[in-house]
């Protein structure tokens, strides 16, 4: 409870003492948003940690060897993630549902265990030391980037692209018969998600003094965690993944009393939320549960959440 009391009574101290937590929430939100793009277009892709690893390693390596400025590093990481996204997307996007999920798991684990842990330049299992990391001041950059990413995704889902993705998610065959180029729009979603994930990974590497090739960071565990942000928050609305990332990342601070048993609390929380709100916290009806009664609402038929 102290957590919330401090948040409301003394926001300045709260900000100063929880800077790293807030930055991590921002990073997780960006990456959950990358997961949102693929889920919104009806694809269960778990490739995000792989693209994060590409973004992170590219930007840190460029900094270590060429001493280029941060913006160039991040741009290079994002570009490489996008290129790999195209190369991976071409063969795997023919797959659907769980098959796509498993193929992308194959991709991230082959990248982590096969490439990152075996190529000397990445520091192999020992990881990379990031000498120019800036954990404290990086938070402003993260929050600005989060706002930009969210604004872009919001605009995209409202436009032609979003309508096409929504149609594909609800019924691929019907979308195809309406003249929507399904393969092309799926590819756009996959590559865009790769770019956002690469961006998030590069930003995260900028905040951490050490790039760790562990399972918690770029492996299946991370992929499932990001999926839980997106699904728990609700994958039918662009704010859903952000809410999911916010809630799940702050759980250890909310249930401080749980101490070592925090994973048990997290597990119970995941099960409870998904059972009582299978469509996610910001699920069907958008922000219905937190929207006040006097707030003007537009009545229209909402699309079911993906899946």
């Amino acid at each position: 409870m102290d957590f919330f009391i401090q948040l409301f009574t003394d926001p300045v101290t709260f900000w100063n003492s929880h800077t790293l937590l807030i930055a991590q929430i921002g990073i997780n939100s960006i990456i959950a948003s990358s997961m949102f793009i693929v889920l919104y277009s009806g694809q269960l892709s778990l490739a995000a940690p792989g693209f994060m690893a590409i973004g992170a390693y590219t930007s840190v390596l460029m900094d270590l060897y060429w001493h280029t400025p941060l913006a160039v590093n991040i741009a290079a990481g994002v570009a490489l993630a996008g290129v790999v996204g195209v190369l991976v997307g071409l063969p795997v996007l023919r797959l659907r549902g769980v098959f796509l999920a498993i193929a992308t798991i194959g991709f991230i684990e082959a990248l982590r265990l096969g490439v990152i842990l075996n190529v000397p330049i990445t520091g192999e299992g020992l990881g990379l030391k990031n000498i120019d990391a800036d954990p404290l001041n990086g938070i402003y950059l993260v929050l600005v980037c989060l706002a930009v990413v969210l604004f872009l995704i919001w605009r995209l889902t409202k436009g032609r692209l979003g309508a096409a993705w929504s149609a594909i998610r609800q019924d691929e065959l019907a979308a195809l018969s309406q003249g929507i180029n399904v393969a092309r729009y799926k590819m756009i979603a996959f590559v865009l998600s790769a770019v956002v994930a690469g961006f998030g990974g590069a930003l995260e590497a900028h905040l951490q003094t050490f790039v760790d090739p562990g399972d918690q960071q770029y492996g299946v565990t991370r992929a499932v965690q990001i999926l839980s942000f997106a699904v728990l928050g609700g994958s039918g609305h662009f704010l859903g993944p952000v809410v999911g990332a916010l809630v799940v990342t702050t759980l250890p601070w909310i249930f401080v009393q749980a101490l070592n048993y925090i994973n048990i609390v997290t597990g119970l929380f995941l099960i409870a939320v998904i059972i009582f709100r299978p469509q996610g916290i910001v699920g069907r009806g958008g922000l219905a549960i937190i929207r006040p009664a006097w707030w003007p609402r537009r009545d229209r038929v909402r699309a079911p959440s993906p899946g």
Partner: protein
Amino acid sequence: MDQQLLNAIFIGSIYALFAVGYTLVFGVLDILNLAHSAVFMFGAALTYSLVVNHGQPFWIATILAIAACALLGLVIEHVCLRPLRRRRAPPIAALISTVGLALIIVAAIEQGQAGTLFGWLWVDGGNSVTFPPGTVPNPTWHVGDLTIEASKVAIIPISIALMLVLGYVIRYTQVGRGLRAVAENPRAARLMGLDVDRMISLTLVISSALGGLAGILFGVALGDISPYIGRDNVEVRGLAVIVLGGMGSVPGAVIGGYLLGLIEVLALVALGSSARGGVAFAALFLMLVLRPQGLFGAQLRERI
């Protein structure tokens, strides 16, 4: 090389036994049960704990642990899957609820230390332990330059026998027909008077008992029991196995298990130990891209 081949067969048996449970649930429910690797770990950890901390004979510990894993299967069904089916949630929701249960099981073992809440279950926290010598019967023979340990060799007949029994049950008995009917079309099965919920509970019980047994065999043969053996050794490899064999196909999972064991040992011999993991996933990725229905899968249906 001969020794390596023997290793390939016995690690393949463990993969196969684990993946049969995985694929059974996917075949019947079209759901990936991500708590399966936690059940694998739970079986091994509980057996160790019963033998070492509670002084039970190995065989009794094994039976109790398998029974506990079967019960855990019922928990998965009643806590994670049935409420979601009642609410017609999308299948992606079941991924999250089973991950939640896996988190709970792993955390319970991980936090188990003498005198804590889970001290009765496990006392070694996050450490890796091995059965003390003498607690598990393990005669060893030397044939030529091969070392044959009973604990490793026994895995092969045990898994093959179990998989044959399972194959017989599914193909020729009333219960097996029921399972196949539910897998084919749950609504039609219900209309034919089948108790679909009971069939699904049964699937989870069989699947979890097999997963727990695979964990026990792994713990005995490799002498490595920790809260993370499920996550590190079989969670993703199990996926690779069921994809190699064809999702939902039980014989496919068996062949896939041995195939993955073989691929990994070949990679180990040809490329060195660091390439072992990467090669398995590259194989998985290629298989999905080239032949997504697997070696023995039926025609690919749209599933999510």
